[in-house]
């Protein structure tokens, strides 16, 4: 089965058959007209032979559909390049050695679930002593002074604490994303740090199940970490970035 990586298509059981499953609701009453609307919609998505396999009346003038179709679009897989956090990942020992040798003092890191978000499991996974998935959290790192401020921390308070503790890096967790509340919240933090003139000094890192590195960069953060991230990923990034900034400062002599 030869694949043309310049033009890949969905696959069901025959190369390039385009098989795609969809489901959605429409705000129309259940019936043959609704079925046709679903077909037309899926056809507009570029699907041939859209087949409505299931239609259910949700009441209140809404209808649910399960549809299959054959996608006509293709993607050039051969040209895909992914922005990733560009840091060689070190382990616990490597990171602490790096701090001793290249930084020479404790790195101060503050973490929090900000805004009204109370989902601490993610940030705890990164920071807590006992760690997560077999990896210790930052609190266990001798080279790191880690402060976990917990949940529902207003951006203003996080920043006040950052100033008080002379933080090198802020770790912000955002799990609730409904209606883009995380975007607004993360953006506000960047604006606040800029207003305080602290943006240069701080390494801003965010994370959460819907966070990607790409999105984090767009929002003005230095890095973003999604599902499955562990303390060493984050720590490696922070310490290298810190070292890089210090060395750059020295070089430019500012």
């Amino acid at each position, binding site marked *: 089965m030869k694949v043309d990586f310049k033009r890949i298509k969905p696959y069901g059981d025959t190369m390039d058959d385009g098989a795609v499953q969809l489901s959605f609701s429409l705000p129309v009453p259940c019936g043959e007209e609704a079925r046709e609307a679903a077909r037309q919609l899926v056809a507009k998505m570029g699907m041939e032979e859209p087949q409505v396999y299931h239609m259910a009346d949700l009441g209140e003038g809404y209808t*649910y559909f399960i549809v299959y179709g054959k996608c006509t679009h293709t993607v050039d897989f051969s040209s895909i390049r992914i922005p990733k956090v560009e840091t060689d990942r070190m382990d616990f020992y490597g990171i602490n050695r790096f701090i001793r040798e290249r930084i020479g003092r404790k790195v101060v890191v503050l973490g929090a679930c900000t805004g009204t978000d*109370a989902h601490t499991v993610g940030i705890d996974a990164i920071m807590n002593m006992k760690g997560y998935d077999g990896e210790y959290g930052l609190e266990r790192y001798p080279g790191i002074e880690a402060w976990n401020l917990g949940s529902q921390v207003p951006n203003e308070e996080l920043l006040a604490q950052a100033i008080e503790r002379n933080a090198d890096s802020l770790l912000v967790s955002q799990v609730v994303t409904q209606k883009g509340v995380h975007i607004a919240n993360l953006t506000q933090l960047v604006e606040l740090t800029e207003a305080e003139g602290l943006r240069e000094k701080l390494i801003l890192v965010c994370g959460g199940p819907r966070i990607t590195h790409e999105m984090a960069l767009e929002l003005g953060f230095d890095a973003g970490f999604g599902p499955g991230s562990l303390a060493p990923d984050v720590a490696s990034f922070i310490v290298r970035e810190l070292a890089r900034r210090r060395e750059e400062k020295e070089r430019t002599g500012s």
Partner: protein
Amino acid sequence: MNGKLRLNPDQIRRARKAAARIAADVDTCIGKRTTVAVERTVLRLMGVDGVNLDGVPLPNVVVDRLLEKEGLSAGAATWVVNASLHYGLSPREVAEQTAAGSLDLVSVPRAGRESLLREGSRLAAGGLDRIAARRREREEKIARLGEGKKPYLYVIVATGDIYEDIVQGKSAARQGADIVAVIRSTGQSLIDYVPYGTTREGFGGTYATQENFRLMRQGLDEAGEEVGRYIRLCNYCSGLCMPEIAAMGAMERLDVMLNDALYGILFRDINMQRTLIDQAFSRMINGYAGIMINTGEDNYLTTADAVEAAHTVLASQFINEQFARMAGLPAEQMGLGHAFEMDPDLEDGFLMELAQAQMSREIFPNAPLKYMPPTKHMTGNIFKGHIQDAMFNLVGILTGQGVQLLGMMTEAMHTPHIHDRKLAIENARYIFHNARRLGEEIRFVPGGRVEKRAREVLDRAVGMLEEVESIGLFAALERGMLADVKRSRTGGKGLSGVLEKGEDYYNPFEIELRKRLGLGGREEGSAHESGLQTN
């Protein structure tokens, strides 16, 4: 009978006894205090509602004013009833004039104690009669329309917009939902007032307001008439406004209320003294209104491991049972929480879930247990998630749970879309119907894995409760014995809203509620002696 699991009744008795002592101990300590929320609730029950020109709710305006003037330790009722009597105004008018600045509560000439108490108790009786009327209304509707079989199918709506919520809730009722819960916006539990009016912009949920309650109640009543089944409405009275929301729910004929101080302490970092005081009053209101409470110990398993921490859930259920009992809430309204939260990739994990659900059922035979679906181990794989939910539903029907909080295949992504709920209901209906009497047909092998697991969880819960009994609940929370979360006695939100009751403290509603609920006074300390014995 000692059930399918042959649980040791002595262990159950020991657990209840320890829990009763724990609750009594807390009660002694909180009995001397009141909170701003309790006082606002008193005002609401007297009919105070509305907002001032800045949008601040009148109960807050009045209570804040009394705090400022150092009058609150006498109870808000003392001043408002006094002003009422003096000016011949309703409490609401008194509040309005206070807000307008045209009336200064603490400088109104004081009526005699006796006439104060007379007027207070008249107002309390009136307030509670209104609630009793809503309760009767519910009973009549159920008698006329009927209701779903147990386990009730409980679904959430959480669009952030009350009008969308109504669409989603009515659609769910048509699919077969028995209970519709409106989730609150993130953050509401931390604000020290209840927003006012219709709201259309929340995050991860919709603001709980009295007007939103009314609109949703109306929508579900309509749907209930059409489908010929009473549809229950649920909301949340946890957080800083716990008793106020309880009162609002009682007035708008809600049927179910999430209500748990421990949840607020552990998951919202609310001060423990504050919320335990609030809880005591709120449970009386819920109890009197015929509202089923739902407790939140299921949440422990989202931060702690579900296999390791199962006994903490059971221990917490025992404590919550005693708190409820002390507030006069009957077992039939105790929707004690537990959950199906083990890693689905665990070998024989299903056996453990089954054992635990059966165990809860046997230990709390009259409580309509609230059984929570898998959430923590739900992933972006909606197909796998849908069958995790099916296994959860199977345990629900096998063990006869009271309220089945339906899992959604999109749990790891978003608050439910309209069809997520449809599929979840379809899932539960299929399993419940197709395996309806399976529980009657099976027995567990004596000495087998299922029996052993139940015994182990019970034994560990007894151990834990006796330890908590010896150190007290506050210390246990400080040590992180629940949910792997540590909270300090004076930390968290809302402590500033706690105050010592003065000599002259007066809360006509508490007095009237205690009377109507057949509760003794708080001081008696009799709670030390015995726990509630249900089997």
